[in-house]
């Protein structure tokens, strides 16, 4: 065996035994806050978001929810019954203007309100880009802390939905991950969604909370009914493994879990799946630890591959873990095209494509 390979292998062995648990332990965190058996109910993603918003409105009189069509419940039902419960002065429709929504939200947040803004589809967040990037992200820095809009949270449904085409399927996270001063969070299931959304609302920094729309109705979990938060900036190891690290977020994590199962079945591989959860600031420590253990990594996201967040993670990982790597870092992502309707299945980083990449990585 090549000397370098041996060295890499021994390094990884050391890592594997030294640190068995890394990343955020979600269930443990919930238990710490709510006790051993908190009361739970089965609900889907929009139900969990609705719960989180209601909790945010209940626990802070100065929290407001606004955006297009939120009053009747929202086009994805995330704001159902909130206006009835909390009043039209706190839950209200705005005119159709994303730049207005963002600017208005910033103004409210500067005053100390929890301004929870909804953008109807992440595809339409771009008119708000100036307000979010030039204003929200820089408010604290440019004023030396005199003013800040930490109370701002902007929620938007993102990602492929099966029939969305160019303007109902985008994942714009990397535009925002390139903006210091913002935080970007993407949950993968209802339990994480509720905890992360509450943490985002209460975080003293402006947060973009992207909700994978395909999961609104299809992702179910037994969500604790009480108030709990999951920390931002921490990744979660969804399942542990030793042969290869699979990194993703949002709806893609489910794909990677399926890939892991198939890899186990067909190739007898033990895959470690990591959900980033917070994309900015991202948890480099957890993924670096994982890669140092396995030596091979696949990063996968729906957004186009060029300059997607996968590129940043790949660059950071190769810098931190170069001598531990057994193979190049692969990224299986959307192509560099606008999101197509007709060939969506071939555009997306599917289970088959990811499994194929895993095979290539193992035999590199």
């Amino acid at each position, binding site marked *: 065996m090549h000397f370098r390979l041996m060295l890499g292998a021994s390094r990884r062995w050391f890592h594997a035994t030294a640190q068995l648990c890394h990343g955020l332990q979600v269930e443990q965190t919930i238990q710490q806050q709510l006790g051993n058996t908190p009361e739970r109910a089965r609900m889907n993603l929009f139900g969990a978001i609705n719960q989180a918003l209601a909790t945010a409105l209940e626990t802070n009189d*100065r929290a407001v929810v606004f955006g297009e069509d939120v009053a009747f419940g929202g086009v994805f039902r995330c704001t159902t019954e909130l206006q009835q419960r909390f009043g039209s002065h706190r839950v209200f429709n705005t005119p159709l*203007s994303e730049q207005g929504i963002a*600017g208005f939200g910033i*103004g409210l947040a*500067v005053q100390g309100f929890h*301004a929870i803004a909804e953008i109807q589809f992440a595809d339409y967040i771009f008119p708000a880009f100036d307000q979010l990037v030039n204003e929200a992200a820089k408010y604290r820095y440019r*004023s030396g802390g005199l003013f800040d809009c930490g109370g701002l949270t902007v929620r938007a449904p993102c990602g492929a939905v099966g029939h969305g085409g160019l303007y109902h399927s985008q994942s714009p996270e990397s535009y925002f991950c390139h903006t210091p001063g913002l935080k970007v969070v993407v949950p993968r299931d209802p339990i994480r969604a509720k905890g992360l959304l509450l943490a985002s609302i209460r975080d003293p920094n402006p947060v973009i909370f992207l909700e994978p729309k395909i999961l609104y109705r299809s992702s179910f979990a037994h969500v604790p009914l009480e108030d709990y938060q999951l920390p931002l900036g921490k990744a979660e190891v969804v399942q542990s493994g030793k042969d290869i690290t699979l990194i993703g977020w949002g709806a893609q994590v489910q794909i990677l879990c399926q890939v892991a199962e198939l890899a186990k079945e067909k190739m007898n591989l033990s895959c470690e799946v990591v959900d980033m959860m917070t994309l900015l600031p991202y948890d*480099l420590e957890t993924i670096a630890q994982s890669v140092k253990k396995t030596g091979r990594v696949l990063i996968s996201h729906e957004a186009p591959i060029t300059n997607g967040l996968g590129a940043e993670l790949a660059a950071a990982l190769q810098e931190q873990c170069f001598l531990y790597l057994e193979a190049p870092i692969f990224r299986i992502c959307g192509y560099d095209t606008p999101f197509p309707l007709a060939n969506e299945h071939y555009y997306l980083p599917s289970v088959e494509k990811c499994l194929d990449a895993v095979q290539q990585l193992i035999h590199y």
Partner: protein
Amino acid sequence: MATWKHGWELWERLTERNMNKKNLLFPLRSLSCFDQLCLKHCIRSQPSASRKTCNSEFMESRRTLLRRYSASSSEYYFPGAIGAPYTDKLELIAGEKEGRIPCFRIMNELGEVSSAIEKEYHPDHQVEPSMMTSMYQHMLKLHVMDTMLYSAQRQGRISFCMTSFGEEATAIGSAAALETADVIFGQYREQGVLLWRGFTYRDFCNQCCGNALEPAKGRQMPVHYGSKELNFVTISSPLATQIPQASGYAYGMKLSRSKNITVCYFGEGAASEGDFHAALNFAATLECPVLFVCRNNGYAISTPAKEQYRGDGIAGRGLAYGIDSMRVDGNDLWAVYFAVKEAKRRILETNRPLLLELLTYRGGHHSTSDDSSRYRQKNEIELYSERLSPLRRMKHFLAFRNCWNDEMDEKYIEEQRKELLTALEEAEKAPKAPLEDLFNDVYDQLTPNLQRQKTMLFEFLERQKRPTHSS
């Protein structure tokens, strides 16, 4: 038949519930468009429908209701324009009409107050002489500060500067009519407002020199002032971004039942941005207690107003949003003062926004990076700056009342120059913020990536100090 019955049921319900209320129009607004339509149908077809009460105020409001809905014989109204009467004439509403919205003025170019001015807004009846003098002094201070900071930039002592020559009355007049608790979202030419509120020469110079004493620690270019204490939100370079923020801030003030308002300043150029449109629409629909003040100084860098818009200025746009608006002579300190005072009173009473357009002239260049002689004639600048000068007319006004004279003028200017020079010299000598500060305030706390990058920078600087191996 069904609509009439439905309307009648609504009428019964409304009258039962609101028998003692003066005004039926508020509960009426909360009905859906269809309900309003049915109600109108019912009222019109049964004018002497049995009434539950003979209360005259109630009857008056019912008459108002009838008047509002019986504008025409047609029965159908659209949700997009309830109450819009039908017409059989194919006539356009002129986009560019002949007349202009009139410009409110109290004091002419010579400082004379018209005898037609109402007592409620006549300076001699409403303002103490000491206050009058103080306002003029602040205008002078502003002028002196602008002149000296401009020279300082030309001498290389500061990197950039913007002056507000010709617009002194817009800043001082409006600031004097407000309280410090009224929150200001400015653009970049409102240093006079800060001056009135008590921002010192040292505060101004510290920011321009970017030293460690100013709150933002030199992170921004000069003239990007901010003060939490004086409720002046830190200036940012992108234009018009502050306008929807002001709407949001005002909404929050309304929810907090504040006794103060939010005031937002911007130029006529910035009013072309989409943010202006969004902000006014939001303020109107969400009923935000915000005062929008447009300093229409005729130029956006080199672009004259006639290349900026085709309509009747900015005041002409208020109507489109359902916002009350007014045009004011921005070089007349009293017109600005009383207009803003009245605007604030009205906003607090109604919780509705208001739009003021202050017509003025930009006497100086856009900034120290601009040379306006390249796009406008010297005689134009002289005409506006001298003839319409806000300082000149106020000086005459005070001189006529024996409150001020040329000698006092010279003395005051000299005093202020000396004070400013001292402040500038001190600011130049003060140290810059430490290097670590580069990474602070991006978030409320340092994130791991920033921690790493800070460490990298300092390690790099260490290596630069001690060159290790040169091979």
